[in-house]
């Protein structure tokens, strides 16, 4: 929908501006003694108002050729051509109108005015069209600014949501209870391990609290958190949980939204490896390929697993976070095979 037509107040303002232009043109067309204000207005206002509507068409080329992404030559060529075409149309309508007025009133001066000033009116018409183009670019600019603001708001809301989820996740009671149960058990059999586990748990909680509230963190920081988490789970699952990690030095400083990987790794443990009697390996890789950073989390899984809606929602969340943080250049690929589940983040 055309932005000027969508809003009645905006349309009224636009037409008022044209009305004033029409009056101005009429005053310029006045000839003392020969042509007064009234006939000049009668001659000029209707074609000018017609032209006002015709110039609304400028919205389409303006939308098709955004200022920031179009070369100046294409911009000038397109709009000059459109200006000439529209101005010609205007002149034809003008000419027809003047002919009609003369035929109706038995006069000749209307046609004379138009014919004698064809060149002037043509130039004025073209300039008015260009003015309309500028007006539409302004409208588009306002619209874009509003969109950007809305998007920024959305990003903030999503970030807040993620933060809340993370707070909930790090307080995932089952993870905590199970870890505490391991500690309780180790206190009897292996006190020094119990102490290690206590420290690991404290470290995990501290790290997630600290990075959870940041706008963005380095991949290194995120991986440290994931490592603490996996170290705790390894005490629970023992040799059933194996970890293979390969991270390029060059991507360690890459920025990611906090707790981007943590929920994915948690899924890999709880829905993947923990559901296998013999356990399995979680592979975590981060490399730079061409212009993008590829982060892969892969785990073995039970081919007989029931389809889980839970992970689907989790992945949808990851997708949205990636989209809002990185924009259109990012992608989340999922490979869901009977014995293998893999999530790859392709980030710009």
């Amino acid at each position, binding site marked *: 929908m055309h932005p000027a037509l969508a809003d009645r107040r905006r349309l009224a303002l636009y037409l008022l501006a044209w009305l004033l232009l029409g009056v101005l043109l009429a005053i310029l067309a006045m000839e003392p003694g020969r042509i007064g204000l009234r006939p000049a207005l009668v001659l000029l206002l209707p074609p000018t108002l017609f032209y006002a509507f015709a110039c609304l068409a400028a919205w389409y080329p303006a939308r098709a050729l955004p200022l920031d992404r179009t070369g100046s030559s294409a911009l000038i060529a397109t709009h000059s051509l459109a200006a000439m075409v529209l101005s010609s149309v205007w002149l034809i309508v003008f000419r027809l109108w003047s002919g009609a007025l003369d035929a109706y009133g038995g006069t000749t001066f209307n046609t004379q005015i138009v014919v004698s000033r064809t060149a002037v009116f043509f130039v004025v018409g073209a300039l008015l069209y260009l003015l309309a183009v500028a007006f539409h670019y302004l409208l588009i600019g306002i619209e874009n600014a509003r969109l950007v603001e809305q998007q920024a708001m959305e990003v903030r809301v999503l970030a807040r949501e993620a933060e809340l989820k993370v707070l909930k996740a790090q307080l995932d009671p089952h993870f905590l209870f*199970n870890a505490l149960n391991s500690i309780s058990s180790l206190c009897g059999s292996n006190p020094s391990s119990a102490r290690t586990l206590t420290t690991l748990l404290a470290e995990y909680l501290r790290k997630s609290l600290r990075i959870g509230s940041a706008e963005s963190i380095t991949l290194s920081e995120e991986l440290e958190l994931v490592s603490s988490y996996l170290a705790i789970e390894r005490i*629970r699952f023992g040799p059933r949980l194996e970890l293979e990690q390969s991270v390029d030095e060059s991507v360690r400083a890459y920025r990611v939204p906090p707790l981007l990987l943590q929920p994915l790794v948690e899924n890999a443990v709880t829905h993947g490896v*923990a559901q296998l009697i013999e356990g399995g390996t979680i592979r975590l890789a981060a490399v730079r390929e061409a212009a993008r950073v590829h982060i892969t989390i892969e785990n073995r899984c*039970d081919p*007989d697993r029931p389809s889980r809606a839970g992970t689907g929602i989790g992945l949808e969340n990851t997708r949205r976070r990636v989209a809002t943080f990185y924009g259109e250049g990012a992608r989340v690929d999922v490979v869901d095979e009977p014995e293998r589940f893999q999530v790859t983040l392709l980030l710009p």
Partner: protein
Amino acid sequence: MITAMIVDDEAPARAILLEYLGDYPQFTVVAECANGYEAVKAYAEHRPDLLFLDIQMPKLDGFEVLELLDGKPKVVFVTAYDEYAIRAFEAHAIDYLLKPFSAERFREVVAHAEETIRSQPAMTVSASSLVRKPLQRIAFRDGGAIEVVPVQRIDYIEACDDYVQVAARGVKHTKQQTLAELEKLLDPTRFVRVHRSFIVNLESLARVEPYARDSRVAVLRDGTKIPVSRSGYERLRELL
């Protein structure tokens, strides 16, 4: 002397139960199991009086293990999920331990268990009431072997007297259960009772053909033909 068995897939969780039980000489731990399969096997071998049973385990969860056991042992569920508490009692568990638990709480549970075992050595557990709904998988016993079939693999189920025959990818498994019992546990949007003696998985259904006057037959993807009663056809029509 009371014999006990510990079933948990996490080594530290088994260790603490073992350690705590060490303080009660009237209990002997006859087996420690790291998964449901081991548990079913060890139970058949040792016939313990008491089971400490974790719920969240791979492939066979605690409730499924109970269902597969020959006898009806006394059970204490051990879990980090308190949302299972109600189901644990539905399963007539003596008690349940929430991880992590204190030595005092453990003493209570053990005392409770001892008292129950001494007063009523045999106890009935209605197996089908334990299983979560809708059923995700069905466990079968074939002599010593255990077969776990995810419900999405089932093509159809046929009633034969007081047991059912479950056909999944060309293999038939039998189980001591009635068709009506099983029907109640299955997801009603996926499994349809098309006949007094048949339940069909909609995902395996290829088409329904007229058979004789007033009767129809369901043709499955693998070509199997299954009779469809008039009311079964009504149910099918509602879902499709």
